């Protein structure tokens, strides 16, 4: 077993991830077969994984920039809220793209407050973040009462319908249009065959390329872009030193304050963009108070799970996005029930992996959770809807509980920095 696993670890990154993804789909397929459902690998499931994952991804990337510059940003949730409000307002009044821009700016303003408080005044990062979170709620409500109440269909807690930037379906792969000609739906064809595993892969893949919002494309493009920006450019190196050893940066002439500001502003902007996406028709199509449902925090969890690297954040965002998406559309609780078995298998995998590393504690804990989950699965037909609601948070906790210790955050993250104090 170990020999096989190490072989996988030797492959180049993309191949490795493809392999993991394949294994994941395989497990889902198995469980589906066992449970006689097709929800887990349905086109709509992977589609919503992508959709729900995007705000988490954007928030996580935002957190990445901030923390790589050394500032912990708990206020992502609040900046996201600002993004939802400004995004809705901008889109309603000026059109979809302006809505995105407004969301970006709205979130950025939140980032500015955080930056001033933490960088300029040395306020504890967590406190500032928490204040922004709640402050944003108040601001949003205040602004709604001033603005949205005047719109048809608007009120203190919601806005009228919000226009979107438009979607896009890949031609050939998923039957999208090319200049009016409806192309063959290759993946769909494979998906409909009902072939074990192959069809499932096809369906999952199709979901990733069907009705994809442009914002999603932008968000996905940001992943390699962030990697390039942070590790291959001068800007990125200087930003990173602020999060690792700001005194060294200062001694070598880097304006640490500036880069911290920029990092936090970027994080606010990205969180704002996430918010703007949430109000767009792909997700909700409307501004609603409280609609961020903790996704700012989940973005942070994705960041931690991803070990402060863009690709890792994507990994986390897709995982959490999948769970979110499945739960939200699963009214009967049946798909989530099947997910229980998947959870059990995943926990089993974690237990084995931990054991192979000699970590008995983790292995034992994972094993026990696996057993509990399996028992639950076997003794019920559906899951109550409150479980569906909290599943994403539980997944976050479990993930963090097992993986927190292997991670390395930027060395100077969260530390107060004052120039000349070396």
């Amino acid at each position, binding site marked *: 077993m170990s020999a096989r696993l190490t072989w996988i670890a030797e492959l180049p990154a993309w191949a490795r991830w493809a392999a993991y993804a394949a294994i994941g789909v395989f497990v889902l397929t198995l469980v589906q077969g066992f449970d006689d459902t097709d929800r887990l690998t349905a086109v709509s499931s992977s589609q919503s994984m992508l959709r729900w994952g995007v705000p988490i991804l954007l928030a996580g990337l935002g957190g990445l920039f901030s923390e790589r510059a050394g500032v912990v940003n*708990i206020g992502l949730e609040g900046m996201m809220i600002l993004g939802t409000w400004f995004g809705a307002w901008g889109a309603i009044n000026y059109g979809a793209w302006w809505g995105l821009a407004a969301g970006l700016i709205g979130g950025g303003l939140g980032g500015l*407050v955080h930056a001033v*408080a933490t960088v300029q*005044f*040395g*306020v*504890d990062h*967590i*406190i*500032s973040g*928490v*204040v922004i*979170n*709640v*402050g944003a*709620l*108040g*601001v949003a*409500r*205040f602004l709604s*009462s*001033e603005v949205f109440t005047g719109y048809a269909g608007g009120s203190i807690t919601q806005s009228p319908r919000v226009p979107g930037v438009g979607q896009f379906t890949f031609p050939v792969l998923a039957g999208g249009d090319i200049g009016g000609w409806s192309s063959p739906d290759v993946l769909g064809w494979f998906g409909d065959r009902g072939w074990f595993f192959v069809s499932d892969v096809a369906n999952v893949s199709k979901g990733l390329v069907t009705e994809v919002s442009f914002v999603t494309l932008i968000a996905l493009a940001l992943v390699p872009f962030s990697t390039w920006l942070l590790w291959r450019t001068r800007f990125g190196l200087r930003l990173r030193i602020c999060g690792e050893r700001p005194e060294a940066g200062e001694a070598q002439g880097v304006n640490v304050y500036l880069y911290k500001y920029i990092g936090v502003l970027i994080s606010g902007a990205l969180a704002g963009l996430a918010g703007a996406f949430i109000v767009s028709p792909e997700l909700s199509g409307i501004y609603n108070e409280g609609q961020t449902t*903790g996704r700012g*925090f989940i973005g*942070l*969890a994705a960041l*931690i799970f991803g070990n402060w690297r863009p690709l890792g954040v994507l990994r986390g965002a897709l995982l959490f996005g999948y769970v979110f998406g499945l739960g939200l559309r699963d009214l009967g609780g049946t798909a989530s029930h099947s997910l229980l078995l998947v959870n059990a298998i995943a926990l089993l995998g974690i237990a084995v992996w931990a054991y192979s590393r000699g970590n008995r*504690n983790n292995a034992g804990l994972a094993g026990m959770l696996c057993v509990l989950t399996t028992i639950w699965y076997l003794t019920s037909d559906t899951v*109550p809807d*409150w*479980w569906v*609601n*909290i599943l994403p*948070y*539980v997944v*976050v*906790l479990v993930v*963090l*509980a*097992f993986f*927190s*210790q292997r991670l390395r955050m930027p060395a100077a993250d969260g530390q107060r920095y004052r120039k000349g104090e070396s």
Partner: protein
Amino acid sequence: MSTGRRVILGLAAPVAALVFAVVTSSIVLLISGSDPLAAYGDMFSHAAKLETLVDLLNRATPLYLAGVAVAIGFRMNLFNIGVEGQYLLAFLVAAHVGSLVSLPAVLHISLILIVAMSVGGAYAGVAGVLKVTRGVNEVISTIMLNAIAITGISAWLIKEWQAEGGVRAGTTTRTGTTPIDDSGLLPGLNGVVEVFTREIGQGKELTGVFVIAVVVGVWYHVFINRTVLGFDLRATGINPFAARVGGVPPGRMIVLAMVLSGAVAGLIGMTELMQTGFYPANPIQSLGFAGIAAALLGRNNPFGIAVAALIFAFLDVSSGVLQFTGAAPREIVVIMQGVIILAAVIAYEIMRRVRERDEARHASAAPAEVPA
């Protein structure tokens, strides 16, 4: 540094914060077309009434408990953001357990209080254990646990424990847990208050939990400042490495602090529980943040938190007035609270820097160490 100067410096920050908050809010009010003076006038005149004062104290009580709960964590550099979830769970469980039995008042009330503290403490303890054994950051874990408690566990339990046939007469809530018998309810304090003042009208009753809050405050002060355990806790918050080397067991401290914090948080819901006797289907939320705000403004000090709680309660009470008189939108209150916090924290930071410089100047009798 003379005592006078110390006092001034100590007060300067919260005063500055308040002034800043008032100014900012006035600007916001003006922009939105309201009259700040009319608004403040309405707020103050309303507060002067006895009934409003009772109301104010009633609101301040849970706020104070929330503040102390958060402050215990802050003393150890732990951020217990999960006060919300802890208190709701504690509230729910205590309400249910309390409704199951009927005992002599002292026992019944004690049972309810103990259950509340245990549940709150245990739930907070989970975050503490996760941090100590698995290194999970308590900010994220408490936020997640919050969500799990509120949308998950509470939702599940409230269904299980739904009261049969409606609830107490005289309330507007349709659903909730089974009401607790009178023996389990802490009596109000109107009798005591009315000795000094006139009769309190409008059906307002000063909650007996006020006494509990005072007791908690005193306990907090004594514990933190006068006991060895409190010293251990504070030392860990100031310098965890030095504390460890000084013999303080770090893991145990973290869990202890979280449990204590959660236990106090568990008492937050008692104000409402002791008045109505049951846990409603839709309880008020947002006391968690207010607790953080009170702890920050009050600088983790039992007396300061009390002052902060009163200020925020005042703002709360006023928001109702504002809605009534129309002088300003009630959301302004929330914004004011946010601004106060930020301004206070910044002001404290500035004062701290000023004080440090002052002390460096005065205290060194020997040639001071130069950054060599």
